[in-house]
């Protein structure tokens, strides 16, 4: 925990500096008759972020904040395991959307999660994994007219478009 605290503070400080530099692409000073420049707001806020990071680092040195006193690991094996399996699963689902669309990615993710992480029966798994895309289709594509990405599966939906859209 203690190491994670300072690593995060340093990373965020670097991010703050990047934001300051990025904000400075627009004028950050006072423009006569126009008021503060377009980058001023984000520039000074990023500067405040940087000050906060330094403050957090000082608290770290003084061991003034709970995480800087804690010897517990930032993530124990259980947390790391879950984080990789669940976070990885969600990342894979979003990645899959680009190839097989929402209607390929969602069932795949649900089968992975329910069957392999949740150890539910195949019946429960398939009921949810197949029910979810149907509900989603009628809610978004049909009722809201928000066409969700279909990826390479698009041709499969042409008959459905003809009926419902």
């Amino acid at each position, binding site marked *: 925990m203690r190491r994670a605290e300072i690593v995060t503070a340093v990373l965020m400080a670097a991010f703050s500096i990047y934001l300051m530099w990025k904000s400075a692409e627009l004028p950050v000073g006072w423009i006569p008759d126009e008021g503060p420049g377009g980058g001023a707001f984000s520039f000074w806020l990023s500067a405040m972020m940087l000050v906060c990071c330094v403050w957090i680092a000082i*608290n770290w040195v003084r061991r003034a904040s709970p995480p800087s006193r804690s010897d517990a690991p930032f993530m124990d094996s259980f947390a790391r395991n879950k984080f990789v399996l669940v976070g990885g699963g969600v990342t894979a689902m979003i990645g899959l959307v680009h190839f097989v669309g929402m209607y390929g990615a969602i069932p795949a993710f649900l089968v992975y999660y329910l069957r392999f992480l949740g150890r539910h029966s195949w019946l429960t798994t398939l009921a949810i994994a197949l029910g*979810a895309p149907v509900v989603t289709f009628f809610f978004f594509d049909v009722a809201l007219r928000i066409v969700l990405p279909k990826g390479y599966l698009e041709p499969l939906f042409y008959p459905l478009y003809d009926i419902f859209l």
Partner: protein
Amino acid sequence: MEILQHLSDGFLIALQPLNLGVVILGVVVGLFIGAMPGLGSVNGVAILLPMTFLVPPTAAIMFLAAIYYGAMYGGAISSIMLGIPGASTAVATTFDGRPLAIKGQADKALTAAALASFFGGTLSIMLFTGFAPALATIALDFGDPEIFALMLLAFATFIGLSGDDIPKTIFSICIGLVFSAVGLDIMSGEPRLIFFDIIGFMHGINFLVLAIGIYGIGEMLWTIEITRGESSMSKAVITVERILVNLKELLKTWKTGVMSSVLGFFVGILPAAGATPGSLMAYGVAKMTSRNPEDFGKGEIAGVVAPEAANNAASTGSMLPMLTLGIPGSPTTAILLGGMVIWGLVPGPRLFIDETEFVWGLIASLYAANFFAVVINILFIPLFLWMLKMPFTVLAPIIFVLSLVGGYAPTQDMHDVWLMLMFGVGGYLMRKLDYPLAPAVLAIVLGPIAEPALRQSLLIANGDASVFVTRPIAGPITIVALVLLVLPLLKLIRDRVWKRKLL
């Protein structure tokens, strides 16, 4: 009298079949969301907001407000039955609700929670009905300096009263505001903060992307990590006869109910305070003023009444500044506010003049939401208990899927979905290090209002920042904000002095 006229007009709108339907649906969804550990009103409202594009804006806001209410009722169910607060707003309900359930009096605690919620909710809406038009009238005179001063106050409340790590709170506020600045600069029209020239940043960072990332994905990752063990559920025996017996005992706690409702309402009004501190404070006050404070924590019925009346009252209270001033009183109302902006409703005093029907329809729908929440809550207690048995490994993937489609729907850009994932994972990791995340969500909603207000004010005053102190209304607000900012410092000094005395 004029208020009563408006209110009856409002009821005509709220009782239209569609509006009534969404209120009832919202209450049911809210009860469920509140009851599930790991989901609170803010998660529900953030994840379900994109789903409300289906209905007209008025119905959509009524639906979301009903979820807010329902969640306040629902939170008590898991606090009592599982001993795990269903939402952070129901933490104080576990103190006495859980001991009652262990003693075999779960039904008493559940009825008390539902009726206290109803009492707190209704009393606070009456206060709301009285205060809101008056406050809106005053706020009509507000110019840019006043609006910015109010924003300052909202952020200062977080820093001064939340009790979180101060540099981390300020960091969270600033990063939220910076994210809100991404996109086109409204005043010069120039693109700014387009990271790595990725075109997706041109349309800015939608507040929903941050809110769903943090409250959908981040929250699930967090809950999966902390709920490792299995929880055990108490048994509840519910009969009409027992409810009537419980009612008699409950009536004796009316004083606690009134006190907690009023306290909750006013704490809720404070920008950024919300229902969680409101319910904890009400519990504390109830214990302090009780004749037998030693019974608190062992299953005292007043210990259930106080936080439950207060959290409902606070949720109404937090809507007061949102509707009249355009400053949300809690993270949930911050998301509601963002939603209103999406629908083209500009929150603030003009709302009471330009959108009279909407405002009074919403207020009337709050009365209706409360009524239905208490009825549905008590009638369907067995159903909610059954739903609580739903394993988290079913709920979590469904929330992830909802987050995915909800993150995509508003802008229909996969760029936003990836950003949402980054915010979710980043938020989860930073939360482990005690970075508060609610300030960032509030900030990204308020940023687009705060920045022009600041720039216009400075322009009017020719760059003289004293404009925020010298104007008759902005001045006091700014000073209160500054006092709140130095409050933690004063506390620190006091603690040091005390320590020295002890040595």
